[in-house]
């Protein structure tokens, strides 16, 4: 059969950021897809040559506007490992709370984009209205809605008072109740099911062989979650990874729906368990320059991220590398697109929750 090549992207209604997939079609069926990135490659990893390690954290945060908090946190954790710094307890708990708030924010953003992609404008607006409330919490506690800059090597810059934390919890629980209604639309609406059920099915074996991470892998039945390792106080939190088994687009939506509620539960536990009081230490600033290397893994909203930092005893790092979850999920995305109908490509691409800024850095 004659083959047609259709370039998907760099501009497309479902793509908030530019990426190209050259789709090779036989009739309406995709037989191959060739990715090209590089439209927003900013060379942030190269900036370690000119930005001192104490300031590099602020650059790292700017890799992406959605995972910004956790990028900053991962960078600081790497330097803390290299420099043998013990972070004060309250700072660790605050980081955990902000990280989970980031997860809720990211999932709400994605659920909105997903709803928009399959034609549910109102659902999109509801999700983003709720996300605004999360951004308000960020603004009040960190001073920034998108870029927070509260992470420092050795701790955090700002404290959140106990009263404020209690108020945040009340707000989140109210949001959780409202979210249940919205979530039920995703889970029960027949037109959404018609669009997503059985589309882009990734088997557990394929999820492993394509090295998928995060909600992508969990929707295919793999109980993989970096938080289970117990680092960064997650050993003190009672939670189980959200796993679905269908492996299709709807399963990936369902994982994120349930993770929003899970994160609210984790924040509740964290506020309950953290040391209380005013004026507790927040920062343990290291002295000197770092020497050595560290790998740091975190569970970002989109999945596992791996940071590699190598320092040589000078002010400038020798290497900083972030392997972001979208980068890890691209092989799975390409595999899913092969064999599907052209009309299903937007939903499949969207359900991996692609973040191209993260992928290219």
């Amino acid at each position, binding site marked *: 059969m004659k083959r047609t090549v259709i370039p998907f992207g760099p501009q497309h209604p479902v793509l908030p950021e530019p990426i190209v997939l050259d789709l090779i079609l036989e009739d309406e069926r995709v037989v191959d897809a060739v*990715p090209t990135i*590089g439209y927003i490659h900013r060379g942030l990893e190269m900036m370690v*040559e000119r930005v001192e390690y104490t300031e590099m954290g602020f650059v790292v945060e700017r890799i992406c506007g959605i995972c910004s908090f956790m990028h900053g946190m991962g960078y600081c954790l790497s330097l803390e490992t290299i420099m043998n710094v013990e972070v004060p307890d309250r700072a660790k708990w605050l980081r955990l709370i902000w990280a989970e708030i980031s997860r809720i924010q990211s999932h709400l953003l994605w659920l909105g984009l997903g709803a928009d992609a399959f034609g549910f404008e109102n659902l999109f607006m509801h999700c983003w209205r709720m996300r605004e409330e999360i951004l308000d919490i960020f603004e009040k506690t960190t001073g920034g809605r998108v870029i927070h800059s509260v992470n420092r090597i050795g701790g955090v810059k700002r404290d959140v008072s106990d009263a404020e934390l209690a108020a945040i919890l009340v707000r989140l629980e109210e949001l959780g109740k409202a979210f249940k209604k919205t979530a039920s639309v995703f889970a029960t609406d027949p037109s959404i099911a018609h669009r997503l059920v059985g589309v882009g099915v990734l088997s557990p074996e394929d999820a492993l062989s394509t090295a998928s991470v995060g909600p992508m892998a969990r929707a295919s039945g793999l109980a993989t979650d970096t938080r289970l390792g117990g680092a960064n106080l997650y050993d003190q939190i009672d939670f189980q990874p959200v796993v679905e088994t269908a492996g299709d687009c709807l399963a990936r939506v369902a994982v994120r729906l349930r993770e929003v509620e899970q994160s609210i539960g984790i924040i509740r536990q964290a506020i309950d368990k953290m040391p209380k009081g005013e004026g507790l230490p927040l920062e343990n600033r290291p*002295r000197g320059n770092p020497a050595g290397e560290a790998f740091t893994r975190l569970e970002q909203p989109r999945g596992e991220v791996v940071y590699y930092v190598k320092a040589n005893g000078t002010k400038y790092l020798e290497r900083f590398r972030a392997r972001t979850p979208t980068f890890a999920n691209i092989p799975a995305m390409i595999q899913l697109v092969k064999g599907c109908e052209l009309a299903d490509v937007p939903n499949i691409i969207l359900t991996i929750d692609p973040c191209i800024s993260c992928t290219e850095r």
Partner: protein
Amino acid sequence: MDRTTFLARIEEYHMGGWRLALINATSAMSTEEQPGGSFDVVWAFVKDNAFEYLREEIVPGDEVPSISASFPAAFLYENEIRELFGINVTGLNVDLGGQLYKTAKKIPFSPSAIRARLEANAAAGIASASPTPPAGPHGAAHAASSPAPTSAPTAGKTA
């Protein structure tokens, strides 16, 4: 690198059900033994909560076999280290032919490119890392065994 032993160890990870987490390269500047510089390449794997990696020192021009026969998802990382570092990876299952990142400057992270950039910075009086970093922790240093030196040189600060 010993190609057969390397691929056998990679296959052990594959058979053990490990997931490929990362392939990362770091350029090391030239030394007396390696005047053209070298690359420190890491292949990292995750299984449950365990994280392990293999590490090889690669000299520019050395042939590095693709691990895509065991880990098909490796092609992205392998295309990346080829485009950004100029490492000669052979036998890829998907060869993107230098079209993954489309950087304006080809092979920006090769030891010679980094050195040229840092020397240009130094000449122009722009604060940046030194083209000749201290020899001590370079290469095999690990976090736990190397406390931060308190009197480290102030690298690259000119004028």
